[in-house]
């Protein structure tokens, strides 16, 4: 017979797990959404970006309207969207009645809804199911994009007037019209390379710049206007690949199934059993046009580029961790505003260095050397990765020059911080804890 005291740790563990699950449920029950939902209030526009959670129908128009009446009114009020709908397949589908306003928005004007993926799934179940299946790959993925945004410390912390910018792109998880713009909802539009550029552009993910600089992109620009984009995304239909052609194989609504390098955000072993499967998926795509050996060589080149980028990033990250151990940061974590969402920050202030410590939120209220590392990791590194993935060698070179420059600049700053480590240290709190925006940020989230 086993001693009864062995049950104590088991019971405590079970109680801890139950308490943890209850806490997560409780934390998601606030006015906002996500893990920090109790920490923030949504702006009115949040309803347009995450309609399932936040959209409120307008109360000023009363009545239950059939499609013909919706169209009659909106032809005068918002003729552009009615014209778009008339141009769409929804207005004249084969073998069924038109899909009109009430089918997606409801008929009762005081109970109108903004369509969510669940609404579109009533007819487009195959696409919706594929989209939902992305959850198995975790983040980065389209389907988890909104959760990723709202579970970020900086999203919960910053004024919502500011983070509205974030959810415009992260709403790819919560509405289908990010890619299929309303009210035409044209698959041909989403097949075009430009369709992705509203979100896949800018310093951390210059997909547009790197693709259009590649041989694929240059050929696309030359041929796009004379190409028939109504054809399915399968081998033989197109002479040049676009974002959707490569990342959504055969038009499948899954972009994360070939994600080997995880967006370039963290160092990975590209040859794990799982990644070997993903590599074969890439080879299958590339060999639509290229021979197999060439395709494998491109992937190996990417491995080398990533390895080189991470050598520099790891050296710099080690240096910053050393500075943290030496208490050389100025200001240190306890001398600048903590995230209001994180009580641990208040009790045990700690500079966040690296992906796993949540450096993605460390781009404000940090010392310049930490921001420089953020930009090295998030801008120069991801820019190089995108250039490498999209086949833009000039931009790979540019990216690695930026990485080398950042590494040297950070090393120089680190040397200066060390030189001053034993010097008098004026209290930096007044400079970092005050100021109009800093105070507003502390009080509004």
């Amino acid at each position, binding site marked *: 017979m086993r001693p009864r005291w062995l049950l104590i740790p088991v019971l405590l563990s079970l109680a801890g797990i139950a308490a943890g699950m209850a806490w997560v449920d409780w934390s998601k029950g606030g006015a906002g959404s996500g893990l920090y939902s109790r920490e923030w209030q949504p702006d009115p526009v949040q309803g347009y970006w995450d309609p399932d959670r936040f959209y409120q129908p307008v109360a000023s128009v009363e009545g239950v309207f059939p499609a013909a009446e919706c169209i009659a009114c909106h032809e005068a009020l918002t003729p552009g969207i009615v014209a778009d709908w008339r141009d769409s397949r929804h207005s004249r589908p084969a073998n069924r009645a038109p899909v009109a306003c009430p089918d997606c928005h409801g008929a009762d004007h005081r109970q109108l809804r903004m369509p969510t993926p669940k609404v579109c799934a009533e007819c487009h179940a195959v696409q919706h199911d594929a989209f939902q299946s992305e959850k198995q790959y975790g983040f980065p993925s389209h389907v988890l994009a909104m959760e990723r945004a709202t579970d970020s410390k900086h999203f919960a912390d910053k004024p919502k007037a500011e983070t509205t910018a974030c959810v415009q*792109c992260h709403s790819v998880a919560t509405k289908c019209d990010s890619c299929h713009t309303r009210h035409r909802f044209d698959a041909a539009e989403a097949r075009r390379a430009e369709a992705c550029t509203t979100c896949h552009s800018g310093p951390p993910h210059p997909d547009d710049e790197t693709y259009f600089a590649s041989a694929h992109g240059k050929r696309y620009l030359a041929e796009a206007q004379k190409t028939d984009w109504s054809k399915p995304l399968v081998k033989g239909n197109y002479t040049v690949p676009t974002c959707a052609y490569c990342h959504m194989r055969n038009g499948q609504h899954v972009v994360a199934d070939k994600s080997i390098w995880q967006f370039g955000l963290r160092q990975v072993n590209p040859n794990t059993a799982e990644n070997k499967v993903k590599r074969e998926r890439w080879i299958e795509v590339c060999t639509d046009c290229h021979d197999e050996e060439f395709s494998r060589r491109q992937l190996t080149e990417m491995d080398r580029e990533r390895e080189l980028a991470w050598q520099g990033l790891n050296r710099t990250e080690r240096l910053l961790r050393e500075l943290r151990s030496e208490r050389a940061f100025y200001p240190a974590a306890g001398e600048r505003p903590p995230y209001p969402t994180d009580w641990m920050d208040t009790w045990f202030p700690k500079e966040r260095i690296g992906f796993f410590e949540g450096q993605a939120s460390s781009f404000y209220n940090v010392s310049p050397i930490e921001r420089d590392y953020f930009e090295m990791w998030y801008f120069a590194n991801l820019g190089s990765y995108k250039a490498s993935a999209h086949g833009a060698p000039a931009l790979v070179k540019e990216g690695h020059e930026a990485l080398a420059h950042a590494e040297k600049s950070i090393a120089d700053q680190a040397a200066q911080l060390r030189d001053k480590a034993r010097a008098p240290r004026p209290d930096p709190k007044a400079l970092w804890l005050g100021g109009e925006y800093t105070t507003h940020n502390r009080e509004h989230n």
Partner: protein
Amino acid sequence: MRHALWLLLLVALPALAGKTCIDCHAGAAERSWALSKHGVIARIEAGRERRRAPDCTGCHALEAKAPAPNHYGRTLSRTQGREAARESCRACHSPRYTTEQNAAAARGLAIGEMKRREAEALLVTAREESSGAELARIEKLFATLRDEDLRHLRLGLAHQSPDYQWWLGQAALDGSLLRIKGTLGEARRTRAMTTDGK
């Protein structure tokens, strides 16, 4: 003054003939539009008879088919511009949607202005207590914050480009602001070392 501007316009118009907006407004103004959903649709559907999404003249020259600077003036006005451009928005978007999007843009810009004012207060302090290379660096950082980061935010909000609103706008403002603080703080530290050394 007003007559002089009209005269200038009459002289300038022939020179502008045949030019597109982008010939003069390349860079952030054009790119913030091109990356927006409006810009994406307009680029994809270039050449189609029915314009589904607005290009430059779609919002900035509402009542005129030919370039009409008085209309540009109205829609580009910082005080009246958003309201004036709403005439174009209403072809596709509901009054509530445009009102809420405009209000959100105003709130976003107010945040950017707060960051600028916080930086400006630091610049005033720096002018009082610093000089030489440190002050020059702070002056340069402030100029970047005001003339690039804040401009990008404004363009991102006006043209509905998330990238210009966030990475090139708000997050860039954060970077410039913390670097001003960092430079000012290091200058104080260096002075404290010098004083201590004496």
